[in-house]
């Protein structure tokens, strides 16, 4: 008899946290807040899905926040200044970001450099490039934007399931399936287990590395587009520090930073836990800047400690009498 899987534990932690928050602020237990939670964290859910692949494969991608920033600026300029139709702009930026990720993956593999630093350089590069494009924020007025922004499925209780939330859910589900059901997914776990071994077992480690970082950057690009819908603008300073939120979400979701273990659904729960912490603090509304930070830290600790405690409990060997076997 094995204990509870980590994902379930994370889910329990989330539900318990939600219940506690709702006890203090009954308004939280509404579809409206749940809808907001999904919408507000849509871009985070999307990048975190990509980051999950990277981290399970034993790597890390610090460039995602900058890629989001670059994407918003690029999309805004392409649509507003260069007169591209929005769809063309989207395709262009997705190709560009995928190529960027592939390049980082290639550098990591070919020169055998630590992903942390290569993607850190990638982070500088993408942010620097967006400064070059424009240092001011560029509003996007294309009609698609208002159409898509206004679109929402009404949930019972007045909550809105917005288009970007739907995109995020689709990507999370797609990512989960890709990781669980395909050969690519299995290879991702293999790489995280041990690169050398995976290579000896016939996994094309180089190609996989390139594909994984490509996927991460591609999803960061999509997140950037979603972000541009979220704010109807492109701004070179947007999504600063998002890489840390993303990594935190992935890790809270039960993925090991050393690689080899984890799940997209767990990551999604991690994103929601972070969103819940934010919502709680906003509902409280009395916290000064510093207490906000302290409370965020304390809640982060509480969630992780609770989760670790539960995992440890679940792992405890089932005590059975190991006496002389009959």
């Amino acid at each position, binding site marked *: 008899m094995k204990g509870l899987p980590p994902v379930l534990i994370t889910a329990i932690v989330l539900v318990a946290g939600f219940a506690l928050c709702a006890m203090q602020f009954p308004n939280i237990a509404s579809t409206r807040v749940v809808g907001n939670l999904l919408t507000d964290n849509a871009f985070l859910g999307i990048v975190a899905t990509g980051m999950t692949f990277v981290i399970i494969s034993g790597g890390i991608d610090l460039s995602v926040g900058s890629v989001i920033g670059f994407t918003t600026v690029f999309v805004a300029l392409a649509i507003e200044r260069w007169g591209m139709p929005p769809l063309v702009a989207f395709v262009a930026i997705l190709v560009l970001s995928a190529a960027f990720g592939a390049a980082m993956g290639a550098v990591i593999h070919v020169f055998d450099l630590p992903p942390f630093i290569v993607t850190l350089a990638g982070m500088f590069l993408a942010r620097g490039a967006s400064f070059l494009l424009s240092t001011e924020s560029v509003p996007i007025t294309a009609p698609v934007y208002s159409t898509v922004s206004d679109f929402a499925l009404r949930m019972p209780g007045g909550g809105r399931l917005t288009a970007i939330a739907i995109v995020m859910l689709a990507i999370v589900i797609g990512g989960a399936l890709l990781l669980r059901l395909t050969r690519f997914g*299995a290879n991702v*776990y293999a790489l995280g*287990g041990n690169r050398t*071994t995976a290579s000896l*077992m*016939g996994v094309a480690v180089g190609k996989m590395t390139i594909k994984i970082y490509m996927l991460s950057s591609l999803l960061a690009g999509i997140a950037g587009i979603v972000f541009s819908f979220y704010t109807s603008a492109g701004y070179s300073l947007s999504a600063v520090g998002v890489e840390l939120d993303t990594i935190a979400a992935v890790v809270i979701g039960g993925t090991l930073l050393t690689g080899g273990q984890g799940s997209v659904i767990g990551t999604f729960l991690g994103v929601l836990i972070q969103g819940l912490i934010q919502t709680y603090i906003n509902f409280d509304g009395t916290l000064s800047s510093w207490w906000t930070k302290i409370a965020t830290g304390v809640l982060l600790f509480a969630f992780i400690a609770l989760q670790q405690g539960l995992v440890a409990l679940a792992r405890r060997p089932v005590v059975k009498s*190991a006496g002389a076997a009959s």
Partner: protein
Amino acid sequence: MENSPDPAPPLLEVRGISKSFGAVRALQEVDFTLRAGEIHALLGENGAGKSTLIKVITGVFPRDAGIVRISGEEVAPRSAKAALGAGIATVYQEVNLLPNLSVAQNLFLDRQPMRFGIVREGEMRRRAKALLADFGLDIDVAAPLGNYSVAIQHVTAIARAVDLSARVLILDEPTASLDRHEVEILFGIMRQLAQRGIGIVFVSHFLDQVYEISDRITVLRNGRLVGERETVSLPRLDLIRMMLGRELAETTSARASVTEHKAREICASFEGYGKAGYVAPFNLELRHGEVVGLAGLLGSGRTETARLVFGAERADLGQAKVEGVPVRLQSPRDGVRHGFGYCPEERKTDGIIAELSVRENIVLALQAKRGLYRPLSRREQDEIARRYVKMLDIRPPDPERPVGLLSGGNQQKVLLARWLATSPRLLVLDEPTRGIDVGAHAEIIRLIRELCDEGLALLVISSELDEIVTYSDRVVVLRDRAHVEELAGEAIDVGHILAAIAADGAATAHEGRA
């Protein structure tokens, strides 16, 4: 089995292969020929270059010179994947599989049964079960491989390679962690494959097995080819001479002082010692100058016993005493403090620190024992390292070499040196001779006897019953995670041990040879 002169080009032909790692010349102009349908043993001392030759053939290491032909066609695989494509399947020596993946995924990684781009999980598990059943293994293939013992992991690796082998199957010390029963099964399968025309390269340090299974033998020494012989026409002593380049110092297998063990002083004792769900409570007395062997099947609880004795695992029952004084063994540090030492069986994950030098690996336990504030000076470290490199003949004899770059057998010697350096009163050795060549094997057994004579108490686990019989003063037999019998004196022989292992429950017993 196949003797007819073959005009067609050999299945695998290697000519003039050379490979250097920096200043170390691991291979120099080595030739090797494998015919279709033969089982070809590749032999040599630790560090002779066997594993390197295999890795050069499969393209894991780029070669400095030489050519490789398969069925007369020159190939130059540049990765393990390419080698697989060329029909060469390999079980590498150290790196086995991926512990984080399920057994089934490990077996079918990169070649899972697919439908519409989706892995057919059920089908894959079914096939995995069938594959392992051929090896007499019935386990949950959906569980992570890491949950299983080294032996099962090794069998899984072999099963994968066997299933993959199109033309050539290379097995680098596949039997090191298997017991007799599994070895029998493997040999059966190897013979079947050979019959189908597959060529098999077999690396082992067990000469019995080599004579049992192989058709021909190629011997390497110090990275050079010594010669290639038909197995039947090569007497054992000649083979050993080819491998070592000298005569093997006669190992005295006579156990001298078996009878007087009652008179010896107790070094450590364990009463009703055990841990729920881990090992059933047992009584064990370890005496100075005495070797206690632990025998049992895979998974019978030998490693668990060793870990409890050393303190790597906390007991929740019973009392441990050292020299008659009750002690608590809560952690490896406690064990070390009481003068225990422990060479774990999984040397790669639990033993060596690959990146650190031989010297640092050797002094580690001693330094940990002395504590932070009494550092060994560099001179002392050099001195200790040099002493043990010489004593155990660690090769290459360079104490500054990262231990991860040593051959498997030499890593094992480094671990032994680590504990010897602490001058322990009790040494627990889990499979100490695994992967060690004949010369070193004799050396280690001699060492074990010598250490005993100096008053050391030893607890040794080995799957080789002959070996256990050779040096043990008492043998404890385990079954189903419980100590079931203790043999001493005249009672110690392979037959008795097998009988004890198999006693009752004939269904689970892996009987000896018919």
